């Protein structure tokens, strides 16, 4: 297709018309290419167009940078603070000889911080459909589903059991990590689409699901995981023993429990770190996180671990709780040492308790934060042995007509970005089933472009660290103040420079290549290869190269985009200008109604 940009003159006549050739592809091979070659976007459950928003921020188009996030993940200001950052683990800049990954999450926050105060975000809206959907739970999955269904033209009512919307974002994450005004602003920007919010309503108790199903065309359960897992060891019922979830809900509701001097927090997820840091702010003097495995096996971000330690929390590894000790009040925990073993199919490392290595750590409070699961609900439809409503993971359908399930209630505890992605997918599926139409589709957008203005020296810019409140004591005197201050404009720009912009695809036109090998000589990595053959998969996508050093066997000189760091040197030296650059982006397209299948 052709995209036209008109530049009108003062009197309104057309002075200039720029025509760009843009192709949209839904070929599986192109989706495969995106997954492999733009690893950050492929790793994001919501497929956020990361290189594009980083480039926009670099160009000081802050509002557009925010919008590019908002299109995919609906809560950029929130995620810019608390995302689990699967993208950074895949960032090409973090490959062994290339340094450290780009601080993608901090740049996301910068987009949120720097966008214009009066920024107008234009939602792409379909006409009303005359359908009503009830969503139970206003956490990230419920909010994302409410947003997408509203834009499709569905009338949405959001039921929330707590007094305020946000779910775990509001009640599970402390304010010093996620300021409430940021959360509220982004929730409001979803509600303004016409979503009716009903708080303090516990569906199943205050309102029967059968009544909802009678009043609405469909219902989506996005109630999260609010049943804490227990250690199932003696002493767990002693006063002074809390679950991580109960502790955090009390803290974030403004009714924190009394915290004594010594606190042990058992578990390994983000909640553990939130509990430990909150306990310090509530006056604890000696707080330790007790891990069954090691720090290396933690899934929380490295920054979070470091910041927690910086506040004075100790992290103790290779210990498994055996019993909680106390006489009318918790006094300590008996642990046994563990030996780490192989990585199991679920990605976690196996551990074996070491007999005879028992030891006791004294404690005045024990917080057990080993996870949550969905609550059993008295809803129609098939339920598992624990009373949890069962649904299909792909279609979100339950056995009850028009009743769907998504988010953590469907999958078990996950991350905020995963919950958002599932909420959006469920919304699409419900809309499709209610109308028989598809409203959006993913496509790969290809547009020829020029090499970037990136300099090779930018590859050596050190990772810009997030500034935080200093001195540390200030964190405890004003316990709700956000610890991370946010990048300055200069820092954000420096960090943006570090991104290789992997959405640029470099390709040699073999019909024009003269095999001079200049490109190979200037390549900073082994990214340009003399190739005898290419390997492809069943989709027709290139998966590898059969290299050769013998000229008589060379059939092509090819750029391996999985190794390319998009420095552009090859383009600069090519004497016959046979290397093209294409910007390839995984985008979401609104499907016109008349063409909807």
């Amino acid at each position: 297709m052709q995209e036209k940009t008109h530049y009108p003159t003062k009197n309104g006549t057309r002075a200039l018309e720029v025509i760009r050739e843009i192709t949209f592809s839904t070929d599986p091979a192109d989706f495969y290419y995106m997954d492999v070659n733009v690893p950050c976007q492929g790793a994001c459950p919501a497929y956020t167009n990361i290189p594009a928003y980083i480039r926009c921020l670099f160009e000081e188009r802050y509002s557009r940078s925010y919008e590019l996030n908002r299109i995919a993940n609906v809560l950029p200001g929130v995620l810019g603070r608390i995302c689990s950052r699967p993208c950074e683990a895949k960032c090409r800049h973090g490959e062994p000889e290339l340094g450290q990954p780009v601080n993608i999450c901090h740049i996301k926050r910068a987009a949120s911080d720097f966008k214009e105060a009066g920024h107008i975000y234009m939602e792409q809206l379909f006409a009303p459909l005359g359908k009503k959907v009830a969503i139970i739970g206003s956490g990230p999955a419920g909010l994302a589903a409410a947003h997408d269904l509203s834009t499709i033209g569905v009338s949405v009512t959001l039921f929330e059991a707590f007094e305020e919307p946000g779910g775990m974002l509001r009640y599970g994450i402390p304010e010093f990590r996620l300021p409430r005004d940021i959360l509220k602003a982004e929730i409001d920007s979803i509600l303004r689409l016409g979503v009716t919010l009903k708080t303090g309503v516990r569906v199943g108790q205050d309102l029967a699901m059968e009544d909802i199903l009678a009043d609405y065309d469909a219902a989506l359960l996005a109630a999260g995981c609010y049943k804490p897992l227990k250690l199932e060891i003696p002493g767990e019922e002693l006063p002074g023993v809390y679950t991580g979830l109960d502790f955090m809900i009390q803290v974030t509701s403004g009714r924190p429990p009394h915290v004594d001097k010594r606190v042990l927090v058992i578990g390994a997820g983000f909640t553990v770190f939130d509990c430990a840091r909150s306990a310090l702010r509530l006056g604890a003097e000696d707080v330790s996180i007790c891990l069954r495995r090691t720090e290396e096996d933690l899934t929380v971000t490295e920054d979070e671990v470091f910041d927690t330690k910086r506040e004075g929390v100790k992290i103790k590894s290779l210990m498994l709780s055996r019993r909680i000790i106390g006489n009318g009040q918790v006094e300590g925990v008996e642990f046994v040492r563990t030996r780490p073993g192989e990585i199991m199919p679920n990605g976690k490392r196996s551990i074996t308790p070491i007999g005879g290595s028992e030891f006791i750590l004294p404690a005045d409070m024990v917080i057990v934060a080993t996870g949550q699961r969905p609550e059993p609900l008295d809803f129609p439809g098939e339920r598992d042995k624990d009373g949890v409503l069962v649904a299909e993971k792909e279609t979100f359908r339950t056995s009850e007509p028009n009743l769907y399930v998504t988010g953590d209630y469907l999958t078990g505890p996950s991350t905020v970005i995963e919950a958002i992605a599932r909420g959006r997918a469920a919304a699409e599926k419900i809309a499709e089933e209610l109308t028989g139409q598809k409203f959006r589709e993913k496509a790969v957008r290809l547009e020829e472009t020029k090499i970037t203005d990136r300099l090779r020296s930018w590859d050596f810019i050190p990772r810009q660290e997030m500034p935080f409140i200093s001195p540390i004591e200030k964190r405890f005197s004003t316990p709700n103040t956000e610890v991370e201050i946010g990048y300055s404009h200069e820092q954000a720009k420096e960090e943006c420079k570090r991104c290789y912009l992997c959405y640029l695809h470099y390709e040699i036109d073999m019909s024009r290549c003269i095999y001079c090998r200049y490109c190979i000589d200037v390549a900073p990595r082994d990214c340009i290869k003399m190739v005898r053959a290419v390997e492809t998969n069943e989709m027709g996508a290139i998966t590898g190269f059969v290299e050769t050093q013998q000229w008589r066997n060379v059939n092509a000189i090819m750029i391996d985009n999985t190794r390319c760091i998009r420095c552009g040197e090859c383009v600069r030296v090519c004497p016959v200008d046979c290397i093209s650059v294409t910007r390839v982006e995984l985008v979401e397209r609104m499907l016109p109604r008349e063409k909807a299948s």
Partner: protein
Amino acid sequence: MTEEHFVIIGNGPAGNQAAVTLREKVPEARVTMIDKESTGCYKPNLLPEYVVGKVSEDKLYISPLDFYKAKGIKLRLGQKVIDVNFKGKEITLDHKEVIRFSGLILALGGRPRIPEPLHPFEDLMFTLKTIADARRWIQELGKVESVLIIGGDLTSFAVAKALLHLGKKVSFILDEDAFWPVRYNKEIYEQAAHQLTQKGVKVLACRKLKGVLRRSEHSLQVQVDDRKIEVGMVGAFFGLVPDVKFLTRSGLQIERGVLVDEYLNTGFEGVYAAGDCAEIYHPEIRDYWVSIGYDNAVNLGRIAALNMAGGKVQADVEPESIFFVKDIRANISWWMEF
């Protein structure tokens, strides 16, 4: 048949001993020792005495460079390993060279540990692990009269002793975190404080060290609880952390050291760890343990090499000498020495 190539990462006492042992046991194999530092192998335990002039620099070194040439041990100094593929048996160096190995001993040693709450003041604290560190101490000691030592690790006591010899005013804050791998308790604290006080060191009580500020070119202000202490310089001695950051994605099991079994094997075939970086479960103290100190490092380097060469030698995790008397089961021999 492919020639065996044993690689040792780390040119400290453990690595050095491992190389020598391998050369003796497997004369036909290639032995390569890689270290990011450019200096030859030295005895870190002599650094405090070097700082105060009791030992000359040439006495620090274990063997002259010619020794390695004569033994057929290839030394690659000043070269930094940035990645290890344990399954593929490949090492990647900073300059992108890839080295294949048939056996590998990690003798990475450690770098001085600064607890995270003190990181903002890191630049104002002196550590003592390398000869370069020692030179900085020598330079600074010429300008100041008083030194505050924070910590309590092996080196800290030797430094305090050396500074007294130099006539400096020495004060000491004993920090429980510094005693790792020893399990800290009141008895250990009192023992250590008693030994220090007897020698003329002022032991300061401290619940929380809040910060260090530079007051002038030769004066620092240390905020301890609600007090402010003026000193010439501050030494930080919180033990070592293994230098294994570059291995975190490699699949190696790492806690505070590289976790190994009683034969010092890391879990990967033909890959061992020795010295300060090897962490082993110690059945006697029923806990994980890192054997610190020069003699232990040499011993572990030897054992790792023997096992690499086909032996089945168990690491002697509890030599009598490292344990204190009576019922305190911990490595506190350096206090006795002090």
